[in-house]
């Protein structure tokens, strides 16, 4: 009986105001959804379209009238009558400072979105001086398929969600430590080959900063031959098993450098397994 009602009940709409414009969204939508419906894009770093929001980066905060604090637009549900401001002084200050805090502690050189926001919000990460503490550390190269450079990690939790509950259900990595020492880690910080990792690469696919990067891309960057401008993308279907995941092969100079999968696929939502993600190494070896 409950099921019948659930099926029958039409989804309610809620109406709210964003920057003076009225917008109606389906009940259950977030403030971010409402903004997007208005074409009013908000900066996001820890939000992922296929992931449960963890709302930790706080770069998407907006001002909600009646709320003591700013609220994260990526996770806060839209409610009837809400009045939201996405570009007030308060909002701009918080976004700018959050970007300065990140930029002063993390290497954002391969994080295009973050760099763009820093520009957009006129953030100055150097304001905390030359002695500001950072998360700089040696890059972890412990397997042939991908590298982990946690000097570039903004601790957005996306890889953890992708490896665990949201997608892969492998739980090879988690957040360990606390405060500024919090970091992404396998159990007891063991190397990846000792951990539960199955090299599906779904964490790489969601990482917004390049902290997780295929070995192919990493090697090319080190060699100075990384050439995103000259990259072409070929769509195909994974040949390995009956699921038939859609693949996007990123090719530079006749070499597959990365494999991704479109997010708008109902079943795979951008995820692959080791064969789809890294099987090209095999293809290339064979054709060589």
């Amino acid at each position, binding site marked *: 009986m409950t099921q019948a009602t659930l099926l029958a009940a039409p989804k309610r709409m809620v109406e709210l105001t964003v920057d003076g414009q009225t917008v109606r969204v389906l009940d259950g939508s977030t403030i971010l959804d409402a903004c997007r419906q208005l074409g009013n894009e908000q900066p996001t770093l820890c939000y992922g379209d296929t992931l449960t929001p*963890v*709302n*930790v*980066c*706080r*770069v998407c*905060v907006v001002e909600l009238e009646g709320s003591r*604090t*700013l609220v*994260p637009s990526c*996770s806060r*549900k839209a409610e009837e009558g809400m009045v939201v401001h996405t570009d007030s002084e*308060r909002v701009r*200050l*918080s976004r700018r*400072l*959050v970007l300065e*805090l*990140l930029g*002063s*502690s993390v290497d954002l050189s391969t994080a295009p979105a973050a760099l763009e926001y820093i520009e957009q919000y006129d953030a100055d990460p150097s*304001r*905390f*001086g030359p*002695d*500001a*503490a950072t998360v700089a550390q040696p890059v972890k190269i412990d397997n042939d398929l991908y590298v982990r450079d946690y000097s570039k990690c*903004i*601790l957005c939790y996306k890889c953890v969600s992708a490896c*665990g509950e949201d997608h892969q*259900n*492998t*739980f*090879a*990595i*988690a*957040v*360990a*430590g*606390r*405060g*500024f*020492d*919090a970091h992404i*880690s*396998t*159990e*007891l*910080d063991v190397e990846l080959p000792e*951990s*539960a990792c*199955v090299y599906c690469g779904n964490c790489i696919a969601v990482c917004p900063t390049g902290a997780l990067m295929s070995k192919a891309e990493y090697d090319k960057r080190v060699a100075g031959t990384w050439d995103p401008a000259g990259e072409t993308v070929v769509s195909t279907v994974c040949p390995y098993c009956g699921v038939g995941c859609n693949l996007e092969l990123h090719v530079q100079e006749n070499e597959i450098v990365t494999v991704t999968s479109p997010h708008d696929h109902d079943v795979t939502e951008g995820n692959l397994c080791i064969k789809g993600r890294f099987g090209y190494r095999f293809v290339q070896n064979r054709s060589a």
Partner: protein
Amino acid sequence: MPDLRLLEAEPSAAERIAIDAVLGPGNGANGRVARDDRTKRHLLLPALRAAQLRVGWVSEGALGYASRRLAVPPAEAYGVASFYALLALDERPADITHYCTDLSCMLKGATVPPGGHASPCLGLCERAPASYRTIAGEQPVEEQIPAAGPPLPQAGDSGLRLLRRIAAGVDPESIDAYIQAGGFESLRRAQELGPDAVLEQVVESRLLGRGGAAFPTGVKWEAVAKQAAQPHYLVCNADESEPGTFKDRVLMEQDPFALVESMAIAALATGSSKGFVYVRAEYPLAHRRVQNAIDLAASRGFLQGFEIELRIGAGAYVCGEETALFQSIEGYRGEPRNKPPFPVEVGLFGKPTAVNNVETLFNVLDVVSDGGEAFAGIGTESSTGTRLFCVSGCVGRPGLYELPFGATLRSLLDLAGSAPPKAVLLGGAAGAFVGPDLLDLPLTYEDTRAAGVTLGSGVVIVYDKDADLVGALLRIAEFFRDESCGQCVPCRVGTVRQEEALKRLAAGRAQAGELQTLAELAQVMRDASICGLGQTAANAVASAIANLGVFAA
């Protein structure tokens, strides 16, 4: 089923016995998880604590065994274990002492001898400098040092309400002594009245929460009571880790049956069949006495239909934040959840939950016995009842004081034999400094709010003319840096930048715009942090700059 490659290290026999004592005996089949163990993730922290109490640290074998038994992915178990300051993941001696280097102990010349561990406030501020010692073994020892504090300063005062049994010296380990002192009369009265009438009295009393957020208890309880989802939980927040706070420890150590009785009343009113008391690890005497009180009350039939479980923390201030506390009980890292949804709807194990501070619950006994209206007649219009104040620092008679709301700061300091203060920290590290100009401030929610300060958890730390205020600010900044859970950027990095800026200011090496940077950090931590920890991490510093002129050019 997740594809877990479980840690392979085996526990020692002693570790296995210690963990099995918490989880029940394993099924022997290695690597296989017994069906009913899969729902016991909430026992992860108790299991790790048991292993550490036995051998002094959490070894790879102990961590692996606990994670295998409970089907917790090893990476997550490691994430949990590495979250708590008191859990050691490297081998160390069995005998460890943690020396408090926090605000009140600093004022009493605290030091950390070689081999000792520095600690944030241990909740023993009235007997500063204080320490906490653990000796792992078959019969583990946990000690608070000094073992006893000064006697209750207001012992002879007939106006005491919350402290009256303690002042009268009622034996905290004897249920008969408690009953003779009028114990369980309020519970009996509540049972006569029934849940609705109890709720009505609590609403009428206008009792506000004493844990720091000053939320109306009656409103919270009504919200839980009316939730359709079942079961409802009651959680007593006894994590008490705000520097300078020790009131809940005194209540639990000296009057534990009253806590059990008040929880039984709260359970009746909110329709909860299960309650938890979450006590910080550093309160071993409170653990023993509260457990004893729970056991005796249950065996005498006072808790019919209601079960209370004691849970013990492992060194994390943030676990006093109500949703972090739920995460901790459930066996996850103590990372606060985003609100809404609020605990009254989605709380412990995702169920409607009433969470209350120890002192808040104690007040309910009088609300029920005397009626809400009579209770509301004490104190002021908006701050009803009496309030406990944890007075420490530069005073002749440090200790726990009880005064009706509305008494002035000056009258409290006079009672405590205070030196003429240069400054007073109200509300702890998350609170604010006031100068001598505010000595006539009436201690109420409304007056402190109007003055831009807070009563918080009732902390009153007195700084005399020779006290080192800059040192206190540096210690507060260090505290928040250490205790940030690390989830959100404004707090994780902001607390580090705040400390760096203060260190430069203290050393006379300020950068251009340093005070402006501190002010911006304060606003953004307040505005954009997930929880109250980050939101208040700049309060004391900002108040010292604004109210005391510290760092004025």
